[in-house]
C-alpha cells in the first residue's frame, strides 16, 4: 500500500507533483517498475522523502492494460473528470469549464508522480533524480509541473486553518479523541480490497486468474455480487485519487467581505468565517459563535442537529457544513439517519497549497487592509482526495452538497467559498449565500466566484503489487 493512504506527510512540507505523458512505453514501464514508491508499512523510510505514483485511465490504456482488465475499473475513472455530462453536474462548466483548464483536458496526463520532502533542498535533489530517471519514457505535459508551497499553521490562502477534520480510520488513522465520528470509518471507504461502510467491498479492478501476471496479485475476497467470478484483485491496497487544481482569488475574497460588511450585517472576518464554518484559526463557529479562541484550534467533535439546527452559529450553507453535514442532513432526517448516510460520503483529503501568500502575515486583517492585488501571482489549492468510490464519495459531495442550490433548507445558494456559480438568467442560480441570524437572516446575492478550477483528473493510486502488474509487458 502506498504511504499516502495512511499519512498526509505533515512532516514533509515541501512537495511537487509532475503530470506526465508516456513517450516511450518500454522506458516508462521500466521506470514504474523500479520506482521506489514509499510504502505505508515503513514510516521510517519517509522521514526525509516520500514518492508516490498514480495513473489515469489514459495512462493505463497507453501501457496497454488488457481491455478486459481496463473495463473493470470504475466508470467515473475510465471516463475522466472532464467527460461532458460530468462537467455539467459537478459545476465544472462556465468559468470552470475543462476547455479553459491549464491541464487535464486538451492534453490529459498519463501518470502523476508525487514527491514530498523535508526541505526544499531535498526536494530539488529528489526531483532531479526522478527527472533523470523518467526522462527516457515520460515527459511533463504543459503546466504539468505542480509546485506547492506550504503556509505555516496549516493555513490555506484565504487565511483559514485547513486539514483539521479527517475521517478516523481505525486501521491507520491517528485518533486523538477529538473527532466527530466516535466509531471509526471503515477502511474500505478509502482503500480498495477492504470492507467499506456498507459492510461489503467497493467495486475493484480485477485481472482474470488465468491472465499473465495474475498470480502476483492477491485473490479477490468473496463478495456478494462483485465480482461475479473469482479473479485477482488489482485494486487491493490501491485507491482512486481525485485531483483538482483550484485557483483562489484572495484579494477578491477579502474585497467582497469588506464591501458587504459596509452594507450592514456582520464584520468582514465574521462574514468570511460564516462562509467557511470555522474562524481563521480553525475554531468551529458552532462552539464559538461569538468570537474565536486565542490559540489555533483543532476542535472537531462538534455536532449540528442539537447545537445549531437553524444554522444561527454556523450557516447551513457554509463550506464545512456542506462538505460534511455530520448529524444534520436536513429534509427531516434524524440524527442517526444523517450520520449513517454522511459516513458513506467521506473523503481522505491530502491537499497542498501553491503560490505565494497574498500577505506574508496571513492575517485576515492585513489582507483586508490591502485593497488591491499587489501582484499577479496565481495561488490556490491542489485539492487531492482519496476515495474507494469516486461517484459515491467525491462526486456525490461535489454535486449534491457543494453545488446544489437546494442543499439543506436552501433555495438558490451554492458553496460560498468553492462553489462554481450559475447566475441569472439561468433558472437554477446558485450564487446566493444565506446567513441565518436573529431576528432574521441576511442574504448575500450575486456572489462572485472565489475559486476557479484550472485543471483536474481522476487517478488510480495502485498498491505496490498492482503497480508491478501495470508496469509489466502486456503486449499490443
Amino acid at each position: 500500500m502506498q504511504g499516502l493512504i495512511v499519512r498526509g506527510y505533515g512532516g514533509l512540507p515541501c512537495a511537487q507533483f509532475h503530470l506526465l505523458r508516456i513517450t516511450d512505453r518500454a522506458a516508462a514501464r521500466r521506470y514504474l517498475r523500479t520506482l521506489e514508491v514509499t510504502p505505508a508499512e515503513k514510516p521510517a523510510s519517509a522521514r526525509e522523502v516520500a514518492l508516490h505514483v498514480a495513473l489515469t485511465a489514459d495512462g493505463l490504456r497507453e501501457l496497454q492494460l488488457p481491455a478486459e482488465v481496463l473495463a473493470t475499473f470504475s466508470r467515473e475513472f475510465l471516463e475522466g473528470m472532464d467527460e461532458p455530462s460530468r462537467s455539467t453536474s459537478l459545476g465544472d462548466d462556465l468559468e470552470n469549464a475543462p476547455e479553459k483548464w491549464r491541464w487535464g483536458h486538451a492534453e490529459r496526463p498519463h501518470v502523476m508522480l508525487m514527491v514530498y520532502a523535508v526541505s526544499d533542498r531535498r526536494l530539488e535533489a529528489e526531483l532531479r533524480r526522478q527527472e533523470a530517471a523518467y526522462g527516457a519514457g515520460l515527459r511533463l505535459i504543459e503546466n504539468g509541473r505542480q509546485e506547492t508551497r506550504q503556509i505555516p499553521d496549516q493555513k490555506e490562502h484565504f487565511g483559514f486553518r485547513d486539514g483539521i477534520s479527517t475521517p478516523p480510520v481505525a486501521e491507520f488513522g491517528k485518533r486523538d479523541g477529538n473527532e466527530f465520528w466516535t466509531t471509526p470509518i471503515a477502511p474500505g471507504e478509502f482503500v480498495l480490497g477492504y470492507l467499506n461502510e456498507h459492510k461489503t467491498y467497493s467495486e475493484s479492478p480485477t485481472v482474470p486468474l488465468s491472465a499473465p501476471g495474475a498470480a502476483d496479485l492477491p485473490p479477490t475476497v468473496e463478495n456478494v455480487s462483485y465480482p461475479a467470478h473469482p479473479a485477482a484483485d488489482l485494486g487491493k491496497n490501491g485507491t482512486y485519487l481525485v485531483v483538482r487544481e483550484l485557483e483562489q482569488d484572495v484579494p477578491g475574497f477579502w474585497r467582497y467581505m469588506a464591501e458587504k460588511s459596509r452594507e450592514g450585517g456582520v464584520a468582514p472576518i465574521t462574514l468570511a468565517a460564516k462562509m467557511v464554518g470555522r474562524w481563521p484559526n480553525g475554531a468551529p463557529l458552532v462552539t464559538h459563535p461569538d468570537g474565536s479562541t486565542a490559540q489555533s484550534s483543532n476542535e472537531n467533535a462538534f455536532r449540528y442537529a442539537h447545537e445549531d439546527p437553524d444554522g444561527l452559529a454556523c450557516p447551513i450553507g457554509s463550506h464545512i457544513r456542506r462538505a460534511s453535514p455530520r448529524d444534520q442532513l436536513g429534509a427531516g432526517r434524524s440524527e442517526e439517519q444523517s450520520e449513517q448516510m454522511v459516513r458513506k460520503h467521506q473523503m481522505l483529503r491530502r491537499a497542498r497549497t501553491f503560490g505565494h501568500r497574498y500577505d506574508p502575515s496571513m492575517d485576515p486583517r492585513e489582507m483586508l487592509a490591502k485593497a488591491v492585488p499587489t501582484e499577479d501571482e496565481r495561488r490556490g489549492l491542489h485539492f487531492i482526495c482519496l476515495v474507494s468510490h469516486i461517484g459515491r464519495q467525491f462526486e456525490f459531495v461535489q454535486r449534491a452538497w457543494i453545488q446544489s442550490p437546494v442543499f439543506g433548507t436552501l433555495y438558490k445558494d451554492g458553496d460560498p467559498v468553492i462553489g462554481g456559480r450559475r447566475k441569472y438568467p439561468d433558472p437554477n442560480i446558485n450564487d446566493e449565500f444565506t446567513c441565518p441570524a436573529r431576528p432574521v437572516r441576511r442574504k448575500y446575492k450575486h456572489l462572485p466566484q472565489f475559486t476557479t478550477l484550472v485543471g483536474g483528473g481522476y487517478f488510480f493510486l495502485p498498491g505496490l503489487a498492482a503497480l508491478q502488474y501495470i508496469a509489466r509487458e502486456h503486449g499490443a
Partner: protein
Amino acid sequence: MAHKVHAGYTVLAPIRPGHADAVSALLRTFRATPRRLPFVDVPSLHFATGTVLPATSWGTEPLPATLMVATSFCGPDDVHVDELVRVAGSGLRELFAHCQGFAPDASDVDLAEFLARHRQWETFYSGMHDLTRADVLAHDKLRTEIEDFIDRAQRDDELPSTPTAIHAAIRAFVGSRADLRWALVPDRRPASAFWARHRRTIRLATLLVPYLAGLVVGTAMLPFGTWPALEVAVGLGWLGLFAFVAVLVVALAGVFEAERRQTFVAGRPPDEYARALAASQCNPVINEMTASAPLKEGDTRPFVLTLALWIIARAAEGLPIYGSLNIPTVATARWVPVDRSRRLVFISNFTNAAEPYVRDFVDNSAQAVNINLTFGWGYGYPKTRGIILDGAIADPNGFINVVNTNQQVTELWFCPYAHLSVDNINRSREIRNGIAVATPGEKEASQWLTLL
C-alpha cells in the same frame, strides 16, 4: 371547494407491432416541441412521463412493447382527464394512434374512455400533498417577494427589530400588493380531501370490519343457543378466512422457494448505457427516472407483488400500517404493476440525479428494508430473503447495477418547476401559512422567520 389530493394517472397501451420506434421518436419530438403536447396548459398536472416499455418476457411468457403515459395531478380524476383531453387531445391521439384498439379519429369522449380503460392502478407516493401547480408557483413567487422585501428593508435600514414587528411589516407589504394579497387568507383543506385520499382504505374497512366483527360475535354466540343459519354463516366465514390465509401461505412459500433458487444478479451495465443515463440526469435540482423490469421467477410472485403494492399504496396514502413512508428527496414516486403484475415499473421525480438518489436508499438501513420490499421483485435484483432481508442491504453494488440496468432514458418528461425541490415546495407552503397568521406570538414569529 374541490380537493387537491395529489395522485397518479398511469395509462398503459400495448403498441401495434412494429410501431415502438415510431412512438419513441414521437415522444422525443413532443419533448423538443412542447406545443404539440402542451402539458404546460393542463392546470391539474404536476409531472408527466411518456415512455415506451420495451417488449420483453417473463420466463417464457412474452410481454408486449407498451406505451406508458404517466401523469401526476391534483384534484378529482375526471377533471384531470377532461383537461388532458381538451388541451392535449391532439398530441395524445397522435401517440395512441400507434396503439392497439385506438381509432385515430376518436372523439373526445372516446379518448377519455380509452384513457380510463387503460388506466392502471398503482402505488403512488407524493411528497407534496394538497397543492396545485398554481399553488406551488404562487408560493414560490410569494417567498421570493418576501425575501426581496427583507433585502430592501435591510439595505435601507428600515427593518423593525422584533420578530412580531418584522412579521407585521411583511404582512403589511403582502397586503399592499394586489398580486400577493391572497396569501393573507388561510388555506383550508376541504373535508372531501380526506375521502379522496383514503377512499380505498375506507371502502375496504366497510367490508372487512363488519365481516370480522360478525365472525367474532357470531362465534361467541354459538354456545348459547341453536341457530342453524348462524352456524352455516360462521362456518363459511371461517372457511373464507382460512382459505385466504392458506392462499397467502402457499403464495409466500412459492416466493420464498423462488428466492432460494435465484442465481442471476444483474452485473454492471455497459458504460455507454450508464453514460447515456447520466447525461439524462443533468438538471441541477429535479430529475426523473423510469425503471422497468420483468419480475424474477416464481409463479406466485405476481400475486404477492400485487398484494404488497396494494398495502404499500395505502401506507403511501398516509395510513400508518408499515412504518412511515417518508422519502425526503422525493416529489413523486410510483410503482406500477404492468402486464398482470408480470412486470414492475418505477417512476420518480426527485431531487438530485438518479444514481445518487437511489444510493440514498441503501445508505441507511431503515430505508433499505423498504427498498427490498418495493424493488426486490425485479429481475436481476440481488437475492432477498423473506422478501425484506438481504437484497440491497447485503449487496448495495448489485442494487445499483440492477437499477442502472433497468433504468430507461425517458423519452418525454414534463416538469413545471424544475428549480424547486420538494423540500423547497413544502417550506414555501409553511411560509405562506405563516403569513396568513394575523398576530403570531413572539416565539411563533421568530420560528417563522427562520424559514426565510
